[in-house]
């Protein structure tokens, strides 16, 4: 039991900090390349996105310092109030927010904007950790499952109301946390099955799909012990699947046409490269044309000449791919992978359940962002507009990821001082 008198950097995990700094710096450089303006060639030019990103990075570092200074017990204690505050701001933004291209998720203060949905990520991760770390909580209990689901579903619902589908989807990543804390692996499997069903429901006629499912269920039942329990299990699974199929079909048919088109393009049902699929196609071209070592810094034509849309935010990975080639993309992916595995390692060495569960929350959120963001640029995931952590341009997202990660770093640094 030592006291932390050797300053705020004592016991912090430098590997995570270094990877964080690397990713943030690389992101900054790539933002510079993606929206480079010859008339404002200084990377510090505040009229340009790269100059602004410098400010976001500076303030993020300040936030990181503040987080490290605050006492380690503070975070667990403040979880619930913070979460409720974020939820209130999510409601408030529906009334007082500014509408930006169809979604009402921003508070605007002049040039400066804040997106509460971004902050809901770490707040929810904290509350989930707080709730599940209680001594008498068991994941196998129905009550626990229900309360956990409510904790996750509330922000999802509010964010969906803001019309920020992409951000809302991120919260499904918490299923990994629940799994780690004892949720049956079947739920994870069920999640995968649900995704497969979701895609199949869009590709195949629903009646044929349901008939096929009925036949599969029947065959499975023949090979299982013919108990009434198994029958009920299979039957309820079948009913559940049919319900998913019907609801997906219903939802799809009630989507707005541009959303429908995005899904169609992702599924390969439509290949209209000049329209909805244009994003994916152009980002594939940008990345694919990078080759092994890339076209060189500031030489990427696809991103610089606007063939790739939103090249500084959601499609920043294209600039990496085009200018730095496979060498660049591999470095980024591997850095993220090291960070993710490091977080898992750190999670498992925590004495406090709160810290462990929170760490898994951090890993889940980062993993979801990485896989969907990179996946969409290389055509392996649907085009869901979510940023690449630490990389993409934007204050709210960089702040939120910084807070997310540095609370973990603080908790980890504090771990030795916690009484179990």
């Amino acid at each position, binding site marked *: 039991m030592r006291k932390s008198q050797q300053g705020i950097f004592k016991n912090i995990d430098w590997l995570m900090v270094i990877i964080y700094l690397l990713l943030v710096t690389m992101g900054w450089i790539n933002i510079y390349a993606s929206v480079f303006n010859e008339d404002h060639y200084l990377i510090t030019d505040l009229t340009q996105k790269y100059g602004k990103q410098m400010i976001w990075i500076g303030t993020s570092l300040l936030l990181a310092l503040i987080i490290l200074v605050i006492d380690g017990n503070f975070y667990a204690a403040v979880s619930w109030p913070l979460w409720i505050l974020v939820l209130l701001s999510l409601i408030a933004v529906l009334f007082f927010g500014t509408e930006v291209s169809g979604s009402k998720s921003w508070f605007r203060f002049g040039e400066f904007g804040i997106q509460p949905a971004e902050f809901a990520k770490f707040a929810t991760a904290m509350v989930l950790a707080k709730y599940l770390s209680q001594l008498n909580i068991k994941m196998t209990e129905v009550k626990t499952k229900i309360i956990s689901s409510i904790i996750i579903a509330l922000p999802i619902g509010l964010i969906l109301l803001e019309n920020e589908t992409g951000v809302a989807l991120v919260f499904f990543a918490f299923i*990994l946390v629940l*799994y*780690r*804390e*004892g949720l049956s*692996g079947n739920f994870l499997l069920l999640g995968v099955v649900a995704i497969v069903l979701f895609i199949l429901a869009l590709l195949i006629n629903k009646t044929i799909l349901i008939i096929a499912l009925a036949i599969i269920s029947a065959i499975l039942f023949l090979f299982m012990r013919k108990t009434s329990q198994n029958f009920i299990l299979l039957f309820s699974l079948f009913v559940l699947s049919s319900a998913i199929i019907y609801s997906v079909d219903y939802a799809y048919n009630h989507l707005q046409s541009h959303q429908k088109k995005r899904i169609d393009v992702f599924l390969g049902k439509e290949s209209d490269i*000049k329209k909805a699929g244009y994003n994916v196609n*152009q980002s*594939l*071209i*940008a*990345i*694919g*044309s*990078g*080759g*092994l070592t890339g076209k060189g810094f500031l030489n990427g*034509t*696809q991103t*610089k*000449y*606007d*063939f790739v849309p939103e090249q500084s935010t959601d499609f920043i990975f294209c600039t990496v*791919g*085009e200018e730095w*080639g*496979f060498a660049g*993309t*591999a470095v980024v*992916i*591997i850095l*993220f*992978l090291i960070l*993710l*595995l490091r977080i*898992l390692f750190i*999670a*498992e060495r925590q004495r406090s359940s709160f810290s462990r569960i929170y760490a*898994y929350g951090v*890993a889940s959120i980062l*993993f979801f962002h990485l*896989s969907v963001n*990179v*996946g969409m640029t*290389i055509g*392996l995931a649907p085009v869901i507009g979510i940023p690449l952590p630490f990389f993409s341009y934007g204050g709210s997202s960089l702040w939120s990821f910084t807070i997310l990660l540095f609370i973990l770093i603080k908790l980890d640094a504090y771990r030795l001082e916690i009484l179990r």
Partner: protein
Amino acid sequence: MNTLSGRKLVIGGIFVAVCAIYLLRLFFIQVMDDSYKLSANNNVLRYMTEYPARGLVYDRYGTLLVYNEVAYDLMVTPRQVKVIDTLDFCKTIGIKKEQFIKKMKQAKAYSSYKESAFEKQLSKETYAALQEKLYKFKGFFVQTRTLRKYPQEIAAHTLGYVGEVNDKIIAANSYYKLGDYIGISGIEKSYEEELRGKKGLKIQMVDVFNRPKGRFKDGIYDTLAVSGQNLVSSLSAKLQKYGEQLLQNKTGAIVAIDPSNGEILASISGPSYNPNLLVGRERTKNYGKLFLDKSLPLFNRALMAYYPPGSTFKLINGLIGEQEQVTFRETRYPCARGYPVMGGKPKCHPHPSPMDLPGAVSTSCNSYFCYVFRSIIDNRKKYANVVEGYNAWRNYVLSFGIGKKIHTDLPQELPGNVPTQAYYDKYFGKNGWKSSTIVSLSIGQGELGVTPLQMANIICSIANKGFYYTPHIVKGIGPKKEPRPEYKIRHYTKIAPEYFEPIIDGMQGAVDHGTSTAARLKDIVVCGKTGTAQNPHGKDHSVFIAFAPRENPKIAVAVLVENGGWGATWAVPIGGLMIEKYLRDSISKPDMEKRMLEGIVLSTEKKKAKETE
């Protein structure tokens, strides 16, 4: 808890698996697959063709015949088109709103991002009006290109015209790309490679809105356009224009050649048209009109129409007779208003008889040349039978450049026709014909077909006493001003030079006191021969061939006026005027000139149409 902490491996496994899949995918699209590089280039590189200026064409005295005029194409990039005042826009360029909608649709169908022609070849006035307002019409811009212009408005058939390449041309020749221009007829076609020059290529980088972003790799792959070569035509613009005036309201052809080098001085086909009609926006409409015109203005009679040479062919027969040693200057044959051997057929007009060779030429005695023809073909000392005799005769005829293409430098030239032995064998049966069967050949009738160009070339051979240069229309290419080398080669006839004197004497006689006195000039010895080409469809065609002066001939001319009747009526005066115009640049017989300029010779077809109206 131990069992649960094992789950970190599952979660870590998922992380590793997804990252591995992504790395594989990235390796595949970035390193293994090259197609994305190509797509990236297609995105960002614009290959801009630099069009060279097409070569100019001058006449033999330096008068400009063909030049380039700037034209303005209105281009549109549909994506960049913002809300504009459509009404104002349509009014400015002179189209209707429906047309505007249709054209925008077409442009969008081509591409929203790339430019395409919205309205081609705006007039200078429209361009000027538009230029002031262009800033209001975002997405539109004007591209300049050149159009051919024919300032003298003459020699439409000879100069030809240019048009956009079609799919067939593009498939056959990789030089041409969609939208390129190519010579379709005349000099524009036959000298296409010299005139077109060489296209240049500029590779430019553009952004997604097609805005230029600088040269690709500082222009190391760019090439400069090379202008086309200028041509000097052998035509005399003045003579050509004069000939076209003489032939107006008549159907026929005039070809004038300088015998000393084969340069075509004038090549006229009537009726003609203004070459500027086949340029610019109205081209298709005008072409359609000309194409449907019953008088066939697009048909180049000078090179493509077959006429029986008529009496002019007697010159060749006389020469062959001499060469074959069966006819001599002093040879005299009787005439009884016709060929006595065949009971007075073919008929002849009244004249003193018997006559010697020059006299027979001057008076154009039919009977005389029937005798000559028979003595050639039926020369059994030399030729075992009529077939051998005929083939020998035919070879002489071909050596004058008829019955085969003479390979002038204009497209569409036709070979003419001199019947083969096989033709007669088929027509009359083997051994079914003899010299008397085909005796009409002796006076240039029968199955003979000769183009006006070939007629003029025959005169050149006679003027030169036994050789000709292939007639050609371009005497100088590029800075060297040399014609194509093949046009500097003499082609010899099978007739020795000494045999030409009696014939030329006869031709001089024809002009001085015979059938062609209308072509007589003071102080210049003109040698000529009339002809009347039989026309089974109507009134006979009037033919005249001549050269002058007798010593060191400067011009050989062939005139053919369809349905002009007896040669002396139209063809001889016109031929005489052409010679005088060229040699003296003035006219000594204004009355005759007036009569010719104002004369109307309706073609038989037209006459019939008039009668039925």
